[in-house]
């Protein structure tokens, strides 16, 4: 086996044999699932507040009924929102609505059913509360009902005293938790609706007309000459852009992770004084190539693992999307763009980070150069999101020509089919820069590996000029 491959194999095994590597490999999909599930879980697990209403005297008459009516309307609105979301999902996926509802029941689209869920339930006013005299007696009963230690069966989350100041409804809301304002918000909305109905009625407008106009949701459809159907825009048309953006982020994450592994590995060898031994056994080029190759294999392992897990999850939970994703990746050539940009981008950053590592023994030493580099690397992250909606915006197009940003921005832009000159030009620029970086980093690596010089822009530039001579 050649020296390069020996070094590559050692580099790969040094990480691949550790438990930490596999844990961190699984951490990303795990946190992606957790990240997606948490909001749904939060929506579905939010408790329903048990609320009792008390009308304070004859002037408040009708307000409890108005609040109940507001609750019923709210329920109607939620059902309509869910139905609308189901229709949108059926339209974009091409699945029958029933299939989506079935999937929801299995938990596949739990977010839609969570739309329907109400946050407040109005219960009958407890007899003790109804019988209590206004004032101190009533307050004592309320405190008992809201007490944390009260039996769960009779315990309330909130008691609302409804009244009128002149013609305008008012309320005092007692809640079990001082920080919980869900009931307060609901009552405020309910009383506003009640008051609006009252005002409209006084003005001679039928409340049913008001409700009907509120329920109205205009049906707006998007069309584009570039859509797959030739007209109406569906989910299939938006999928490439989503995959492009995801590819850009994935590339950024993989390249920076791989390059950082290389930086740390070289730093460790420098601080452990292994680099000099290696240099007596292999040329700087063989060492650098071996290390870059070893970490590339590691990065590829991560990519394959994530890709495999993603594909499995897609086939298992959303099989109807799998052919679409396959089409986008293979037919539109996304996978080839992705691999080309991954190769160029990784090479550029990996050799640069390895060369920096050759000057450093601790991460603190590397900070001088790594700080500014990482700040610059934030730019493509910000611009990538813009590339999703405006892939032809001047700032996106110009920054795509910066070789260090090309892999990320062009991956994100690829689905929007940018002009061929931009694809070829930026890719050529990226690979030219990658070759230049290999040359620069090779010289800096050779000089840094045998030097005790502290890393600075000046010493790095000097090393490149001198090439370790």
């Amino acid at each position, binding site marked *: *086996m050649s*020296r390069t491959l*020996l*070094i590559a194999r*050692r580099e790969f095994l*040094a990480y691949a044999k550790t438990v930490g590597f596999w844990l961190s490999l699984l951490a990303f999909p795990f946190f992606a699932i957790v990240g997606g599930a948490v909001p749904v879980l939060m929506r579905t697990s939010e408790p329903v507040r048990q609320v009792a209403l008390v009308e304070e005297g004859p002037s408040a008459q009708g307000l409890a009924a108005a609040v109940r009516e507001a609750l019923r309307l709210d329920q109607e609105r939620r059902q309509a929102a869910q139905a609308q979301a189901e229709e949108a999902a059926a339209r974009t996926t091409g699945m029958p609505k029933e299939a989506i509802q079935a999937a929801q029941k299995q938990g596949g689209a739990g977010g839609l059913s969570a739309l329907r869920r109400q946050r407040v339930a109005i219960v009958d006013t407890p007899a003790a509360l109804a019988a209590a005299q206004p004032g101190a007696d009533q307050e004592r009963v309320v405190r008992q009902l809201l007490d944390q230690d009260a039996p769960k069966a009779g315990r309330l989350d909130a008691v609302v005293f409804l009244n009128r100041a002149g013609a305008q409804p008012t309320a005092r809301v007692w809640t079990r938790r001082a920080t919980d304002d869900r009931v307060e918000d609901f009552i405020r909305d309910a009383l506003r609706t009640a008051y609006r109905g009252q005002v409209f009625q006084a003005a001679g407008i039928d409340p049913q007309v008001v409700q009907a106009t509120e329920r109205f949701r205009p049906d707006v459809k998007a069309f584009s000459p570039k859509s797959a159907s030739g007209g109406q825009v569906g989910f299939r048309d938006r999928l490439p852009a989503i995959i492009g953006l995801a590819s850009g982020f994935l590339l950024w994450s993989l390249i920076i992770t791989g390059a950082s592994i290389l930086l740390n590995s070289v730093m460790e*060898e420098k*601080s*452990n*004084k*292994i680099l*000099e*031994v*290696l*240099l*007596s*056994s*292999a*040329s700087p080029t063989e060492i650098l190539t071996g290390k870059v190759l070893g970490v590339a294999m590691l990065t590829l392992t991560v990519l394959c693992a994530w890709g495999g897990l993603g594909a499995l999850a897609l086939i298992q939970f959303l099989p109807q999307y799998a052919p679409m994703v396959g089409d986008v990746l293979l037919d539109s050539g996304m996978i080839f763009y992705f691999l080309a940009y991954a190769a160029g981008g990784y090479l550029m950053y990996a050799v640069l980070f390895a060369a920096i590592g050759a000057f450093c023994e601790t991460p603190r030493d590397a900070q001088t150069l790594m700080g500014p580099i990482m700040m610059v690397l934030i730019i493509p992250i910000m611009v990538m999101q813009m590339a999703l909606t405006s892939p032809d915006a001047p700032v996106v197009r110009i920054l795509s020509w910066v070789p260090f940003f090309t892999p990320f921005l062009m991956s994100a832009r690829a689905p929007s089919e940018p002009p061929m000159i931009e694809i070829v030009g930026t890719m050529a620029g990226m690979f030219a820069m990658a070759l230049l970086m290999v040359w620069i980093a090779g010289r800096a690596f050779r*000089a*840094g590996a*045998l*030097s*005790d*010089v*502290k890393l600075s822009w*000046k*010493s790095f*530039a*000097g*090393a490149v000029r*001198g090439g*370790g*001579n």
Partner: protein
Amino acid sequence: MAAALTLESISKSYGDFQAVKDLSFSVPKGSICGFLGPNGAGKTSTIRMILGLQPATSGRLEILGAEDGRKVRDRIGFLPEERGLYKKMTPVEAIAFFGALKGLPSGEGRKRAKEMLEAQGLGASRNKKMKELSKGMAQKVQLIASVVHRPEFVILDEPFSGLDPMNQQGLEQMIRGLAADGATVLFSTHVMQHAERLCDKVVLLARGRKAFEGTVDEAKGRTTRFLELEGAIDPAAVQALPGVAAVESAEPNGDARVIRARLSEGGGGQEALKQAFLSGLDVRRFQLKEPTLHDAFIALTGDNPDVDQKQRPETEAAR
């Protein structure tokens, strides 16, 4: 005897700083050669040039018939001054890996690693992680890693530094063993005692220049014997004795002094000692001493090998 290594007028500069100046010497095949000098004398720079890790500014060298070490990498074993191995590897894995880099098949490397570790008393530690070994054990492992491929030429940069006396003795045995097996050994050190015990030949280096090249005895022959006197004696009185070239030191010892005087060339010291007794000096103890390699180094270079000569500019690599 044919030379395994020849340097001809080699110089190395880092910007304005000249680390090695017009250095020429040769190392015969199968010999143990000590490359001696204080820290900063230019030993490591010279070794790096021999290995081809750094180019010479001028001059030429030849090692095992090649113009620098890069061409005959697999025939050379190298132990650098500052040592380290992969902490998570076991000694067997580390030795086999470095052997493989030198072209030794992996299986053979592992087999030899086990044998050599056993021979060095490290058999029980062969499957431990490197980070679990003591410094002395780790240094032995690294030395084994540098010679597992049975190199023809072994370069050891300050191999004794950081080792306790027991391990230093073990290392001396290993070096003798390498030479006995036919390897040529060049080792650098600033501790003269090791060179005195081991070397067939020494090259003394001071401030980047060669001060001497020859055998240990030839080096010692370049200086004179010493007369050591102990008593309540005035150093000036010793300086006045016949055959005394110079008083090298006068160390207080209770109410007395220990005076070390270098004798004149060819002087045996008997005349000086006789005159000391005759002139009534308070001589409580006397000793005539043969010069050591350390003494020879001082006499030949005017420098003390224990004093650092490091003065390389901080930005050497950036130049």
